[in-house]
């Protein structure tokens, strides 16, 4: 929808942004073909999770924080249990860590397959939604449903439910799945790996607008694996610090146009978390098969074109299927599902790689294990400034486009980030003003 401004300018109103999680808007002002401002207006109401964690028992965060998001609950659960176990001095076993990674693989399969096919692919293929896309790409959509189901089934087996898992506890799990139960899923996981390669083959043929992000990339890094459930924080500028120092480096701040806090790293400009950052900082930690998939997808060892995030997500799909198979094949029954976690006063920090990027949790407990203070920094909050910066760059490149086409391109650029507004609000409606 367009409106004339009194100064001869124009307002383009696109309405609620589709194919993102949560509610928000965007306002772009253009004067003399120069972008004056770009604002993500996140109007989903604040959800106050940090506030209502206060006064709750230290055992409750995995169940409470899982409810923040229906597509990345494992990220929240894992970050919370890591932080609390740190406070309480509990050391989990390698088997518990392996099972956390397997559960997280299920979440990445669910989330990435949903975003690649249902939300992002229609942008590249020229459809308004996956429903229109299904008429011409029925086989692709069927493959997407199979991939997502594999993720759901893995989540259900390990987590007890496909959404908001209930089997995660501080110290581990209530129950470990058996090898037999895992082997029942293995054929679907193995087929998923093959279809993840088919995904690479498809998405690498898409047309990608030229764009190179100059921002700092931030991700977790693990000495042995592609970091997912734990790691230290590293960036492309060479910054590296343990998770406990996250609050020293990352400062959240409020902007008037968003209900989600923005964040800065060491006082710098926009920085990016998520698939591009993970891939660029951890290519050497990918499995040989995932690196082969990246080569087949035409990627170098780094990727700074946000539109190619769809290829990186497909590479990460390969990675998590490989990891799921590795964990299932190595599993031996008979291990304790959890370790004891006695309450202890202190402060603890946890960070994991949610599908959209680094998620940070901090808790402070009293001696009885009551939560005195909680802080949650989700990935979409951290990515808001870089989304706005991307749009500023792209709108200037695309200034000659019609308002309709410009709006469509902007929405596409936003979906590069797979923003989760529900997580961040703690978000889209698009308005462009031209004069």
């Amino acid at each position, binding site marked *: 929808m367009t409106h004339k401004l009194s100064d001869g300018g124009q307002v383009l109103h696109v309405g609620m942004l*589709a*194919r*993102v*999680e949560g509610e928000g808007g965007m306002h772009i002002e253009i004067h003399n073909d120069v972008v004056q401002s770009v604002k993500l207006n996140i109007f989903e109401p604040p959800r106050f999770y940090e506030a209502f964690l206060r006064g709750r028992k230290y055992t409750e965060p995995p169940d409470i924080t899982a*409810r923040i998001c*229906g*597509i990345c609950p494992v990220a929240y659960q894992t970050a919370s249990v890591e932080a609390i176990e740190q406070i309480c001095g509990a050391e989990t076993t390698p088997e518990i860590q392996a099972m956390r990674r397997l559960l997280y693989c299920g979440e990445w399969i669910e989330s990435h397959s*949903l*975003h690649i096919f*249902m*939300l992002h692919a229609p942008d590249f293929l020229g459809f308004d*939604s*996956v*429903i*229109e896309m*299904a*008429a011409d790409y*029925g086989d692709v*959509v*069927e493959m997407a*449903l199979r991939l*997502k*189901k594999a993720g*759901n089934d893995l989540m259900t087996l390990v987590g007890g*439910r*496909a*959404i*908001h898992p209930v089997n995660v506890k501080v110290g581990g799990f209530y129950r470990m799945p058996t090898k037999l139960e895992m082997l029942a899923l293995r054929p679907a996981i193995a087929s998923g790996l093959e279809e993840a390669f088919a995904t690479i083959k498809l998405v690498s043929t898409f047309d990608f607008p030229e764009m190179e992000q100059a921002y700092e990339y931030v991700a977790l890094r693990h000495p042995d694996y592609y970091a997912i459930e734990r790691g230290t924080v590293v960036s492309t500028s060479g910054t590296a610090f343990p998770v406990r120092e996250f609050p020293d480096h990352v400062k959240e701040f409020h902007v008037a146009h968003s209900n989600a806090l923005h964040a800065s790293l060491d006082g710098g400009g926009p920085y990016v978390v998520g698939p591009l950052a993970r891939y660029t900082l951890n290519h050497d930690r990918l499995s040989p098969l995932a690196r082969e998939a990246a080569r087949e997808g035409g990627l170098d060892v780094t990727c700074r074109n946000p539109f190619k995030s769809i290829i990186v997500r497909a590479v990460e799909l390969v990675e998590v299927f490989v990891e799921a198979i590795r964990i299932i094949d190595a599993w031996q029954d008979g291990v304790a599902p959890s370790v004891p976690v006695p309450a202890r006063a202190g402060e603890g920090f946890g960070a994991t790689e949610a599908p959209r990027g680094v998620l940070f949790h901090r808790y402070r407990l009293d001696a009885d294990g009551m939560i005195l203070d909680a802080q949650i920094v989700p990935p979409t909050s951290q990515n808001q400034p870089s989304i706005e910066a991307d749009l500023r760059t792209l709108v200037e490149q695309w200034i000659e486009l019609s308002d309709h086409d410009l709006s469509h391109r902007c929405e596409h650029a936003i979906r590069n980030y797979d923003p989760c507004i*529900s997580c961040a609000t703690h978000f889209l409606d698009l308005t462009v003003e031209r004069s």
Partner: protein
Amino acid sequence: VTSSRVVIGLGSPDRGDDAVGLEVARRVADLHLPGVTVVEHEDPTGLIDLWDTADLAVVVDAVRSGSAPGSLLVVEAGADAGPLADRAWARTGRGGTHAFGLAAAVELGRALHRLPHRLVLVGVEATQFEHGTALGAPVAAALDAVVATVVGLVATATPQVEAVSHVSG
């Protein structure tokens, strides 16, 4: 000749009225209706796999249409019926993860030719979806009527002799 019938309760537990589909599914399951599969389910993207082999599928979910709380909305949405209106059921709960809700699942199923011949959506007008809350009084008061509606739908379908099952989706 046999037919397969499935009742799918869609929703989230502990999210106020959004649990109505799950609660109705449990009550229908307790009736042990011969040949009726009952499923509790949360993720709309998984619906197609649940219903595409059925002759009759009934999906119960919370809806927000502006009607009186607890009132019923029954919509025929199967392969033998026409497409849903663009915004139909779009405000069901939070619309599912990343706005892929029941309406999207129905239309995606139609595009993929994976709708049952008869798919009936039974909506219960909902008002509150707060975390950690139970069904609101108007929705709780409507449960008997919703169960009776669902039973009426599956009981009038062609009976057959499959075993009863109750699975969690």
